[in-house]
């Protein structure tokens, strides 16, 4: 018996196109511990875990489970070795029931038929003994995210996982829900489960981890215990230099009201109410932050405010005029800029080159239009300007958007939106998945816009971002605005409770 549940030795993983995602990575998980794997986006944490789980085949290196060298070529091998994984994007079939999702791949059979009732029985036993309540008959897409995460954990336990990999499990949770998760994690380790906890959130690492391994640019930069470490120590290890954890900015000088929202109600794709009867206003020269756990109506709110979606009822007023529903062009004409939540879905046309992407929402008028045709000269000029001003790393204006890194793609979008005269800006999760350098750059630009007198609506699930940038904060829960406060009166705990729906 080895003292290590899992050891990873000298793993190197290259992707087609030459990107080295993991370089000579070593990592050891002690039995019964919570081992945090810390690193920025793109540091190679998820790649490493996908290697361990058999989803990627490494070019070099070995994996040892319980002191024995093993080959893990596919998830089946991993499951057989007692490795379970809870992915950042849940691997659940939305239209299946909880029981169907959990039994998938490990089906109980009775005479060739699926034996769903014995699966349900086993699930109920598991949830009772680990204190993880799930209803096996519920349809997954009807469940809140926290519950879906539990289903994922039960799914791993159903397969007798001894090693549990949790990939960014708190990204979708409130701080309080995260704390609940930590209790569950503790309970699991007490029953002999070893946990790898992947995150980029320093506070959580210090709160729960027994051991911390930090990764940067595909390499392990060090392993340490949390004792005596501060957040900034870890941040420096993670980024490789001193990081300003707080964004520097001046006091805001809010002026006239630019945007007024009255009694807004919005439905989502499935026709369910996503935003319920909310009202607020936004003033020039301020950043209004909307805090909330993902999936509480922020996406739909942003889409309505930017004209992508039509509201069910309620009014939006800009410059004292009622805005027509679902008309982005009207809003663009009235000085709106929008950095969307999902840059691949909304922000960019990936197969287009940068020139065509830069013209995306102003292609229809001068300078990009000359009569019936497009003025390609002007488009090219604008693109080169943005590349220069926003420090976009690319081989040139004609390179395809899909060839850029996430940070550079986001810079192109921000550049496009900020290079025309605007009076209000909607930014939704502006730094999700970006490296620290890009995050800092984008934060600085947002504050610059505020200082120029632009009204900024910032929607973010990252409390640090909200607290760092916003001047005034609204909290959204279940589609409703549950609180409003100036940033000075806000702190993480308070916001966390509000985001979880409890009265503060």
């Amino acid at each position, binding site marked *: 018996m080895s003292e290590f549940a899992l050891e990873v030795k000298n793993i190197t993983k290259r992707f087609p196109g030459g990107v080295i995602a993991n370089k000579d990575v070593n990592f050891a998980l002690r039995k019964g511990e919570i081992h945090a794997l810390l690193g920025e986006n793109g540091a190679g944490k998820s790649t490493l875990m996908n290697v361990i789980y058999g989803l990627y085949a490494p070019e070099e290196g070995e994996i040892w489970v319980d002191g024995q060298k093993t080959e893990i070529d596919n998830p089946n091998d991993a499951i057989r070795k007692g490795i379970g994984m809870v992915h950042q994007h849940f691997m659940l079939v939305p239209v299946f029931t909880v029981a169907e999702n959990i039994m998938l791949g490990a089906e109980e059979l009775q005479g060739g038929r*699926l034996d769903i009732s014995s699966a349900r029985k086993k699930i109920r036993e598991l949830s009772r003994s680990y204190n993880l309540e799930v209803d096996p008959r519920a349809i997954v897409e*009807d469940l809140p995210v926290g519950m879906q995460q539990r289903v994922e954990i039960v799914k791993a336990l159903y397969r007798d996982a001894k090693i549990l990999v949790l990939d960014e499990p708190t990204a979708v949770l409130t701080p309080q829900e995260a704390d609940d998760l930590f209790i569950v994690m503790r309970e699991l380790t007490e029953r002999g489960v070893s946990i790898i906890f992947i995150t980029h959130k320093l506070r959580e690492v210090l709160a729960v981890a027994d051991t911390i391994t930090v990764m940067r640019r595909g390499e392990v930069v060090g392993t340490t215990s949390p004792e005596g470490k501060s957040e900034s120590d870890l941040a420096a290890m993670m980024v490789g230099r001193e990081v300003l954890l707080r964004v520097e900015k001046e006091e805001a000088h809010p002026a006239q009201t630019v945007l007024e929202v009255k009694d807004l109600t919005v439905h989502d794709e499935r026709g369910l109410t996503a935003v319920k009867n909310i009202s607020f206003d936004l003033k020039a020269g301020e950043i209004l932050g909307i805090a909330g756990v993902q999936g509480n109506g922020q996406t739909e709110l942003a889409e309505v405010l930017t004209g992508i979606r039509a509201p069910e009822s309620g009014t939006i007023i800009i410059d004292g005029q009622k805005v027509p529903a679902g008309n982005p062009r009207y809003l663009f004409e009235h000085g709106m800029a929008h950095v969307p939540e999902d840059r691949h879905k909304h922000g960019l046309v990936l197969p287009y080159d940068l020139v065509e992407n830069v013209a995306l929402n102003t292609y229809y008028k001068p300078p990009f239009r000359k009569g019936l045709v497009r003025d390609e000269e002007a488009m090219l000029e604008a693109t080169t300007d943005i590349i220069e001003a926003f420090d976009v790393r690319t081989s040139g204006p004609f390179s395809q958007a899909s060839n850029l890194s996430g940070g550079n793609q986001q810079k192109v979008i921000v550049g496009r939106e900020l290079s025309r005269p605007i009076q209000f800006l909607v930014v939704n999760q502006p730094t999700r998945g970006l490296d620290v350098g890009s995050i800092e750059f984008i934060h600085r630009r947002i504050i610059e816009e505020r200082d120029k007198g632009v009204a900024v609506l910032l929607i973010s699930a990252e409390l640090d971002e909200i607290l760092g940038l916003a001047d005034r904060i609204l909290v959204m829960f279940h589609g409703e605005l549950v609180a409003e406060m100036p940033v000075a009166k806000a702190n993480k705990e308070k916001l966390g409770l509000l985001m979880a729906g409890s009265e503060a």
Partner: protein
Amino acid sequence: MATASPTISQTEEKSFLRDNWILLSVLGVTLILILYFYNQNAIVTTAVLAAALRQSTPLVLGAMCGILCERSGIVNIGIEGTMLLSAFVGFITSFLLQDALGPGAIWVGVVIGVLSGGLMGLLLAWMSVTLRMDQIIGGTVINILAVGLTGYFYQQGLTAGDKLRAIPLGPLADIPLIGRVFFDNPPLTYLTLLLIVLVHLLIYYTRWGLRTRAVGEHPRAADTVGVNVYKIRYVNVILGSCLAGLAGAYLTLEAVGSFERLMTNGRGFIALAVMLFGKRTPFGAWGAALLFGFATALNTQLQFADINIPHQFVGLLPFVLTILVVAGLVGRTRDPKALGTAYSKE
């Protein structure tokens, strides 16, 4: 989603009733109408319904091919070509072997026809799963290829000894109405009725079915729990194409007794519509196929009765109906989430 309590799923029967009340009421009305017309003119009603069932056989087989493929996430518009090629191969086989094997040659022909369908499925799976070609283009390739190959290798004057003839099922066949319609049919028709039940069981009550549906909805999720997405897709497409192959064999060896160029005449495309109409369920597809079969039989019957509507207009019925169906006027269908997209591990 805003409310805290999650929806609890109903038991299967209850949700079936809730989701399909339109279907069920249509079914009820249909039954009443059938009994009414049977009372009015028993012979004609029986004849029309028997014709509807006959015409529905290749359609429901083709539709079940579509169901198996699409449930696993692969669009198959090559059903038409698969049917045509299998019809040809099945017929040629039975023709070549009829001297050596006698009547058994037809059955060998059926088997080889089915296998040749499977081979076309293999080709489609290779194109769409391994090469990750666009699936609609892959299907188009199969359609064009089948027309070319069967046309080129077709020879004149080939005649099979016979075709598969009706086998009345003893006393069952003597039951009024139902007996003639269901229990006095040739063997592949019985086999088709059996296959409808089998495919239904396969999809909803077996491990394979659960995995197939998971792969069609969320292939990566299936992959992470150790389900081999490629294998599921390959096997489903091949299996499904075997059913299309059976439809082809049905055409040459049971329905007609000879092969002719282009003899599928768009049935593979209609089968796609039937599949959508039936919401990708075997029984739904069967109902839809019966409806299409009924439309054709009705067209014939109207002419029999010398009712003077231009037959082209009556002939429009199934096509207009299909458009109404996909336009959602007769209840919407939900596509499997991953339908039409190739899966790649990395």
